[in-house]
């Protein structure tokens, strides 16, 4: 049974005169982006069928991701959760032979796979943290400013300020503030991953995608990243793919369970783990398979 996040829990769109209920414009959103109705999911995925060459990786996915919540994608390997995550900032474009055959993904109501969408702008707003931490072999400072320099920000004082803010935001500042000029490759695995998070938040995206961000980290570093996710949820919409069910249970608000390319169940995290509606979900979260 597929539980689709419905708009039932949200206030229905106003039918009165439009100016009366103009939603607040999100800062940094160009006016061309239709402002979402309150309570409408930020990301709406509808009937998505996705293929790698001839093999179908995602089947009929329909799911909404709410703003400023942590949404976890769980499921056994090969279930399509990472593929779906990479659809959200179109990183799958880099892989040859991938295509969306049917369905749509809308962010702010805009179908991101239409030809009039600039993928560069999309990725500025939808940041990503990868499974294998990938700091660039530059200094810590240069890693954080990389995305800002791409946008043409050259002002040194401003860059320094953002570096500090981002590193504080990623709970890394105290550990690295004395060696910002040193290579990021000298950091520990956990620090590298938090640096990648700092690098992602430095460009102020709205959504941060995390693809198994802790799979290569030890428990202490994992705990720090999870704590960080809790801190970030107030400012960003976070989607996290994880193999670790405890992690999903600990740090997400909503959880989607995928199996063989299908969305099996999507509900509040508490419900998924304590009262799953679907027997497959129950089997997975209780550790009987996967």
């Amino acid at each position: 049974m597929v539980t689709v996040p419905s708009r039932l829990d949200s206030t229905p769109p106003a039918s009165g005169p439009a100016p009366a209920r103009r939603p607040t414009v999100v800062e940094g959103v160009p006016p061309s982006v239709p402002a979402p109705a309150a309570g409408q999911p930020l990301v709406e995925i509808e009937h998505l069928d996705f293929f790698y060459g001839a093999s179908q990786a995602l089947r009929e996915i329909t799911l909404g991701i709410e703003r400023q919540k942590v949404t976890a994608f769980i499921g056994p390997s090969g279930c399509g959760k990472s593929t779906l995550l990479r659809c959200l900032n179109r990183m799958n474009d880099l892989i040859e032979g991938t295509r969306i055959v049917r369905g749509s993904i809308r962010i702010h109501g805009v179908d991101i796979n239409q030809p009039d969408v600039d993928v560069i702008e999309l990725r500025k707003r939808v940041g990503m943290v990868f499974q294998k931490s990938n700091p660039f072999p530059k200094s810590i400072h240069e890693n954080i400013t990389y995305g800002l320099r791409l946008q043409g920000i050259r002002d040194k004082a401003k860059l320094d300020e953002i570096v500090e803010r981002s590193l504080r935001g990623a709970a890394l500042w105290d550990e690295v503030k004395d060696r910002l000029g040193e290579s990021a490759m000298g950091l520990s695995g956990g620090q590298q991953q938090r640096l990648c998070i700092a690098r992602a938040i430095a460009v102020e995206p709205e959504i941060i995608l995390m693809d198994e961000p802790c799979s290569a980290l030890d428990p202490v570093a994992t705990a720090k990243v999870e704590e960080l996710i809790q801190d970030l949820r107030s400012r960003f919409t976070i989607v996290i793919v994880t193999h670790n069910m405890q992690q999903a249970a600990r740090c997400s608000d909503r959880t989607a369970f995928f199996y063989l390319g299908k969305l099996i169940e999507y509900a509040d995290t508490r419900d998924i783990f304590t009262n799953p509606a679907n027997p497959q979900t129950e089997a997975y979260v209780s550790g009987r398979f996967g």
Partner: protein
Amino acid sequence: MNPPDHPFSPRPDGARRLESAVFWIFRAAAYLILACGAAVFLDIVVKGSATVFQSKAPFVNTAFLTQAPESLYVFEWEGQPRRMGDREFRAFKEATPAAANVKAESYVYSSGGIFPCIAGTVLLVVGSMTIALFLGVCAAIYLNEYARDGRFIRFVRLAILNLAGVPSIVFGLFGFGMFVIFFGWNVSLLAGWFTLAFMVLPVVITASEEALKAVPIGFRAGSLALGATKWQTIWRNVLPYALPGILTSSILGIARVAGETAPIMFTAAYVVRDKLPWEVERAVDFLFQGVMALPYHIYVVSSKIPQNEFTERVQYGTAFVFLVIVALIAASSILLRNRLRARYKW
């Protein structure tokens, strides 16, 4: 000491005899190569340094390194054997009218130095490597980062591999037909640059592609995910890390470009030229002048003039200077590479 007949005592059999025979064959091969290399190198260094260095201050034969080649005149004057370069000999004859009709044996290029050849070779190497690196890196970026694998790209790669196997004399003739005659550049630096550049291009492209492939895909993905364009990603986050590998290939290219005679003999090299490359009237003439070059000079002095004690000095001296210059250029790019490597480590 172990007791006799313990279980691990040696048992000579076929496999063990073969093992030691094979080991000796491999070892002999390695030593033979070392011996050949050392023989060539020592011969040139020992005989060449006799020309380049001298026993009295400044211990370097500056004339050999700074003057142009001249003919050597050997004659007897007032019962004494004398040796003079061309200019010195003419001045001598003017100063001493009695010597005007002295019978002298002349040996071409055996006096003076090889400075124009050094200058020409350095210019050829710098220019052709600049062209080869620019074209080669652009092609490698296209092949590795932009092009989608398909039949056409496989065909391009095959063509590049085949190009690497083309003999250098064929490149020389191609350059002659293309640049010297068809483009009307005549025998010139420019024609030599392009001919040599095309000759090393396959090596540069292949090595640059390998260097680009060695940059982890995560750096590209990380950059793109921050909203970089493909070119921004390549320029800021791929090329800097691939540069040490690209420079390694260029070191091999330098040795080849500096050393090849065949490609430049039709396109850029003069047997002898009075003016130095920068002694031109208009700046544009710089590109359209032929130059003297070390490998071609070695070829000329070793094959075009009779062998004797006087030319041997020039032959070995030129070969020695040539080796040193190639080593210097290669060493400087190795230094540059190591500095870049230390800067970007992952």
